């Protein structure tokens, strides 16, 4: 039902309320009393008329008088009722005017209530935005701290990686050192073992000694034969003596060589035994290898720790989470723009209520002045139609059209976002 048809209904409904009802009843009682009085005043005259005509009455005369009497009473009653009706109409208009004026107060209250609600909603929305900004601020600070940790963490990771690399290089150097030492030990052993070849000279010394002995025997034989030969063998005897001296000297040298070879062999054997013992036990290199193994294990664990830290991944995840929070907050704040649209809608409704109040004021004046207004409905409809200019959403226009059957304003369908 349109407001144009609602208002008169409300007014008439108001007129039938208790106070108006009491006034009407009083007037009706007054009218009834007046009618009784008029009828009472006419009674003697009627009686006289009846008495004067009754005796010589004819039925027609009686009927005419009766009709005249009834007609007169009817006219009088009608006049009284008209007077009462006029009095009642005047009172009803005054009451309706009061009620319509009261409705303006009602509208004023509603209008202000809407304003208050809108203001509170605005404040609420602004507080929500402030909270969101605070949340973002906290998230931002946390992310900055994490970024600072990231820098420190990256430095730590770099140092740790350098340390792992240095440890690896140190391990390699130690490995090379141990290998060299082991090779040296083996080389010494080999050399000593090769020196044992000196023992092979012992049989040769024996041969030299044997040759010296044979030579000595030969020289002795030669000296004997030279002695037998007499003077002619004197020269040969000299040679035989030289050969004997040579063989003696050779024997002495052979003995000396044999002693030295034995001495050297004994020394080599001792060295070999010691070298073989060292090589077998490999004490120092074993220790070194243990150290190397420890270092390698430590390095591997360290490297695994560095990998396990995965600071980059952690920080990347934190950054991603922070960006996600920021995006959601930005979106949520964007949605709060709806608050502005709602505010404009409420402002539109407030203006509508103000229009209706003005209309009711005009109605009040018309009622009080008993001046009929023939264009009231049309004016009210025009006011409602003019309200379409305040609509901020197409849904408002559709609602307007649904209720009034009139178009809610020209709202061409256009994209929500358009870049020219």
């Amino acid at each position, binding site marked *: 039902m349109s407001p144009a048809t609602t208002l008169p209904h409300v007014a008439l409904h108001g007129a039938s309320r208790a106070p108006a009802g009491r006034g009407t009843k009083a007037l009706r009682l007054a009218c009834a009393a007046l009618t009784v009085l008029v009828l009472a005043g006419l009674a003697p005259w009627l009686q006289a008329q009846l008495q004067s005509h009754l005796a010589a009455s004819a039925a027609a005369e009686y009927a005419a008088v009766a009709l005249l009497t009834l007609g007169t009473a009817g006219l009088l009653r009608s006049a009284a009722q008209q007077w009462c009706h006029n009095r009642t109409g005047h009172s009803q208009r005054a009451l309706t005017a009061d009620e319509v004026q009261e409705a303006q107060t009602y509208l004023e209250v509603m209008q202000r209530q809407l304003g208050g609600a809108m203001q509170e909603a605005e404040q609420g*929305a602004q507080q929500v*935005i402030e909270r969101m900004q605070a949340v973002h601020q906290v998230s931002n600070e946390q992310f900055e701290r994490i970024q600072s940790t990231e820098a420190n963490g990256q430095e730590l990771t770099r140092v740790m990686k350098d340390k792992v690399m240095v440890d690896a290089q140190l391990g390699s150097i130690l490995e090379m050192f141990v290998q060299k030492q082991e090779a040296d030990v083996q080389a010494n052993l080999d050399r000593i073992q090769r020196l044992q070849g000196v023992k092979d000279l012992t049989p040769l010394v024996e041969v030299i000694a044997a040759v010296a002995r044979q030579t000595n025997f030969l020289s002795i034989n030669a000296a004997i034969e030279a002695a037998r030969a007499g003077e002619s063998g004197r020269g040969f005897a000299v040679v035989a003596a030289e050969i004997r001296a040579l063989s003696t000297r050779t024997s002495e040298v052979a003995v000396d060589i044999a002693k030295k070879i034995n001495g050297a062999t004994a020394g080599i054997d001792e060295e070999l035994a010691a070298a073989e013992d060292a090589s077998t036990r490999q004490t120092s290199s074993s220790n070194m290898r243990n150290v190397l193994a420890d270092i390698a294990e430590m390095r591997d664990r360290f490297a695994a720790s560095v990998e396990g830290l995965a600071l980059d991944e952690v920080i990347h995840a934190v950054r991603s989470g922070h960006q996600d929070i920021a995006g959601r907050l*930005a979106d949520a704040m*964007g949605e709060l723009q709806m608050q502005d649209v709602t505010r404009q809608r409420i402002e539109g409704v407030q203006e509508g209520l103000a229009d209706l109040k003005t209309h009711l004021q005009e109605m009040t004046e018309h009622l009080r002045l008993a001046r009929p207004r023939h264009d009231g409905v049309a004016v009210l409809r025009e006011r409602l139609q003019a309200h379409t200019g*305040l609509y901020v959403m197409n849904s408002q226009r559709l609602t307007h059209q649904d209720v009034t059957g009139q178009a809610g304003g020209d709202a*061409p369908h256009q994209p*929500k976002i358009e870049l020219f």
Partner: protein
Amino acid sequence: MKNVFLVDDSATMLMSLKGTLEISGYKVHTASDGEAALGLLRGGLKPDLIITDINMPKLDGIGLIREARKLLRFTPILALTTESQQLKREEAKKNGATGWLVKPVGGAELVKVIKQVLPGA
């Protein structure tokens, strides 16, 4: 960091847009009507982008677009308004607006549009 200049007579709108843009990494300046905005622009403010409401007191969005275009020939200007102002779309375009957005525009959507009109932002 790019500078965005927001002009709207609604404090809530300014707060919501400022929050959205600051979170997204923009520096934001604000004004609550066209006249105040024009004063800041004449005072030397050189934003990379202007986003303005249309229906505002003193100087409306169309007037601001027209006057701002005289000062900043190449600065993108986006109108952000309600459906009721649709009929002013062409007028905004004629006066030098770069684009037209109908409220509400989500944060991600708004940033996407800004990146379109401000390459590299």
